């Protein structure tokens, strides 16, 4: 039962990732891509924790945390750049 639910969730995360990826590739503006990138990051965090869970490795949680941190800084930096252009 639980395995089935985790599998369904993994599939849904994959679909969400592809949808956001479509927007990332399609654009059309730089801002659209950054929004898509931000969304991709958040979806990936769930993905990373999912891998941590499947592998039973708690250390991957730190990866997810640092990933969240870096993406936040990244989005802020790019937004600042867009603003000043």
């Amino acid at each position, binding site marked *: *039962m*639980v395995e089935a639910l*985790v599998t369904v969730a*993994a599939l849904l995360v994959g679909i969400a990732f592809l949808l956001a990826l479509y927007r990332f590739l399609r654009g059309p503006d730089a801002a*659209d891509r950054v*929004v898509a990138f931000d969304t991709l990051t958040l979806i990936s*965090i769930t993905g990373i*924790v999912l891998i941590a869970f499947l592998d039973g490795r708690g250390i991957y949680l730190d990866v997810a945390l640092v990933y969240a941190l870096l993406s936040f800084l990244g989005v802020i930096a790019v937004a600042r750049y867009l603003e000043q252009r």
Partner: protein
Amino acid sequence: MLSILGGLLLVAGAAFLVLAGLGLVRMPDVLNRIQAGTKATTLGTLLTLGGFACLRPDWALKLLLIALFILLTNPLSSQVLAHAAHRAGARQTPLANRVDRLAEDRGDAS
């Protein structure tokens, strides 16, 4: 029991992530995409992290830390991004009764 709840939370969260993706694809302009993206990813991620916390209670503290971080930073980054997008003059959908007080106050004709 707890693991079933965890699994259900996981699926619900993932469904909201799909909703975020759909919102990104379907919404017609940047600001609306940000609206869809932030709300759905925030709730979705909180739910999936909560689900994992149910599946692995020993990870709960660290998952809570990640959730807290996302809850505080995600709206902030979309706010900065929304302002940047608006400022850079990203295209918006032309609609009949469109109000844009920000553009009015800044003095640019939209």
